[in-house]
């Protein structure tokens, strides 16, 4: 029998009050595979992310990383198991320089974060610079993180997420709030690193150009349920996906009958 896939989610469910934000969702991500998780607003993408990240305890279902159960383990333990992540609203350490941000992550990844002696700013300096070079931030290494432009904050986040040498990288809307040119650039960088280091990537994104340009596989969520999954070309042509995104025309159809542009009619 072959090794289990990098990430396996089975039967994930989580309700907020009466709303089933995530309802019986199962999928997997292989090492080195770039998978996009898309869906309209409120489809359950963020909840799904927080379930995999260990931040939330699912009502049902399990999350396995290389066969190891990390369900609801909490972000710190998920990190040690090999999960790195970036946030939708970028979060970096404002009181540190760009390089120190990465060094803090490196220190944590190498089990040195509880060491109360020795200079933190000398920890893994070279590795930090290497990661910053990867994400295109080497020139800004000594700048205060609080001064960065938003696009650069996102790049720094990527460097921080990579510092733990993750096997799975979760990116929650990595390009949200960025200028179009920066977007493409950041996605290219992230994907290149992931391919080179055989990191599995699961990302949510509203920018369909980024999704179709980079994803090997696309998962589509709608109202908490996984309605489609497959190669970009398949998903693009999937009727259910079109319905979810463009509306299924039921309201319209009820008053004026079938419509040439209606996905159902094709």
């Amino acid at each position, binding site marked *: 029998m072959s090794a289990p896939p990098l990430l396996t989610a089975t039967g994930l469910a989580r309700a907020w009050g009466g709303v089933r934000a995530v309802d019986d969702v199962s999928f997997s991500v292989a090492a080195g595979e770039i998978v996009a998780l898309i869906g309209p607003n409120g489809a359950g993408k963020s909840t799904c992310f927080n379930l995999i990240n260990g931040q939330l305890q699912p009502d049902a279902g399990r999350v396995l990383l290389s066969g190891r159960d990390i369900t609801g383990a909490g972000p710190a333990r998920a*990190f040690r198991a090999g999960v790195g992540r970036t946030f939708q609203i970028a979060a970096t*350490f*404002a*009181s*540190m320089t760009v390089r*120190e941000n990465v060094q*803090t992550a490196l220190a*944590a990844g190498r089990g040195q974060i*509880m060491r109360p002696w020795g200079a*933190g700013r000398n920890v893994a300096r070279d590795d930090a610079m290497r990661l910053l070079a990867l994400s295109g931030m080497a020139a800004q290494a000594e700048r205060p993180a609080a001064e960065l432009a938003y696009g650069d904050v996102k790049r720094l986040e990527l460097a921080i997420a990579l510092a733990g040498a993750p096997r799975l990288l979760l990116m929650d809307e990595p390009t949200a709030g960025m200028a179009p040119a920066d977007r493409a650039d950041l996605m290219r960088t992230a994907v290149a690193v992931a391919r080179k280091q055989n990191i599995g990537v699961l990302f949510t994104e509203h920018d369909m150009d980024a999704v179709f340009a980079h994803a090997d596989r696309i998962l589509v969520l709608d109202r908490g349920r996984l309605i489609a999954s497959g190669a970009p070309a398949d998903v693009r042509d999937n009727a259910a996906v079109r319905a979810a995104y463009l509306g299924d025309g039921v309201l319209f159809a009820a008053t004026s009958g079938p419509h040439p542009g209606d996905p159902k009619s094709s």
Partner: protein
Amino acid sequence: MSFWIAQFLTGLASAASLFLVASGLSIIFGVTRVVNFAHGAFYMIGAYVAWSLTERLAGAFGWWGGVLLAAAAVAALGALAEILVLRRIYQAPELFQLLATFGLTLIAADLVVMLWGPDELVGRRAPGLTGSIALFDQMIPAWDLFLIVLGPVALGLLWLLFNRTRFGVLVRAATQDREMAAALGVNEKWLFTGVFALGVFLAALAGALQLPRESVNHHMDLRIIVDAFVVVVIGGLGSITGAFIAALLVAQLNAFGILLFPKISLVIIFLVMAAVLAVRPWGLLGRPDVAQRPPAATSARPWRPLGAAGRLAMAALALAAMALPFISGEYLVIAATETLIFAILAVSLHMLLSVAGVASFGHAAFFGLGAYGVALAVKGLGLGMGAALALAPLAGLVGAGLFALAAARLSGVYLAMLTLAFAQILWSIAFQWVEVTGGDNGVLGLWPTGFAAQPAGFYWLTLGVAVLVIGASRVIMFSPFGYGLRGVRDEARRAASIGVRPGLMRWCAFAIAGTGAAVAGALFAFLKGSVFPDTLAIPVSVDSLAMVLLGGVQTTLGPLVGAVAYKALSIWLLSQTQWSKLALGLVILAVVLAFPRGLVGVVNQWRDRWAKRPPGSGEHP
């Protein structure tokens, strides 16, 4: 039975004024996010002004007119304070406004003595409500019955104000989301001033309404402020109804505690507060989303360890400090020793407040644990000075470790208030467990021995410990662990996602800070040769907070500079003038207004400005 009913009614009457004070405090915090330490002072001033108006000018406005006019006048004073002081520092780090209101409290404390004298003043009773009414075989003062009715009426009026007027809607909007309210065109400036004036009006009215019940004195401010804080926290910050329920609870606990549990009467309300927070971390009717602001210490200026020149300067400073006993008299040496001890205390609080971003209003707890640790080691175990000094800090470590475990679910102002409760609980134990602690008489005869028996020797010992503690704190600050602490402070979510556990880091910060504070407390016990419950009392907590804030909460050298400046100044002022509180308060206000980033913060600002100047425009700052 009838006696119990009378006691219950007394409690109800007390609840009314407690509710007025606490609701004012709660409204002010809800909208402006200012922890108004001066609220007790406004309450006290309200009582004094009402006394003057009803006593001296009774003919002009009548008794009731005098009371209302007093509250209005003090509200105007509050509005003035808001416009002149607070309005300028809303952008400063969180808690910095607390320092300003602490300055106002100090000024008020001396001013009332200056204007009305140190003696208690007995006020007139309200016309028509002077007598007593027989109820259940007990004579109940008519005034108490009036207050019992007033409480719910005040709650109803406030409810109407907040739910049926435009002002009230704006206040509620700003309480829930200040930025959103501002974005919708609400004039924040005047809303804040209005809210502050309203809060102060309620406090002053409560003070004035106490006239028929108790004499007016200059200790009223501190006595009410602690109870009011407890009420606000139990009720939930920003909730008026919560404050009402909590005021009833606290007033009844005060009324019956002394009868039912005389041994622990002082500690009951804090135990109840701790219990409430353990079950509901945001108070009875509070909401978790209130008071979300980045921790005070979050700064945009990366921290740097000292360079070679800086280290040399620090070493030179330590060497120069060693020479002090050769060139000055004993008095100055003892004053310098005390200053050093408080520098250790401030540095330990800085580790918690600035490095880990955890606010504490009760740092005296760990200071006092160190001091009583010495008393126990010397008197109980018969140990010498060296062993006592080595062991006593463990009391702080254990105390802080246990406290941090119990408080793990709390954060922000609620955690800060729980630290205050913890300190008050320990204070009550020291005060009431006479068999062990000697109670108010303290533990005496803890004199240093050997070379430290002389003031100069003890000074050198203290200096050595201070250098060690300060050095250790800087090593920790810049170690990987220090980066981890700051990571949790800056962005806890991000820290967790890179494998740093926020809860564990905060626990460690408490343990370290508690140990450091206990070191200071242990030295303090030997400096004074005795230990009193005062070492656990609120002024120690407030002083240490003031030192860190004064020096600059966002800086690394702030606590050292702040402690030396604050302690040296207060010792000096004490020897120079009988109005030392007034002078210290004015100095604090001046510093707050001139340097809203603290003493070291302003130096950093100047340095940054110089660094950004184009080359050639000047090299020496």
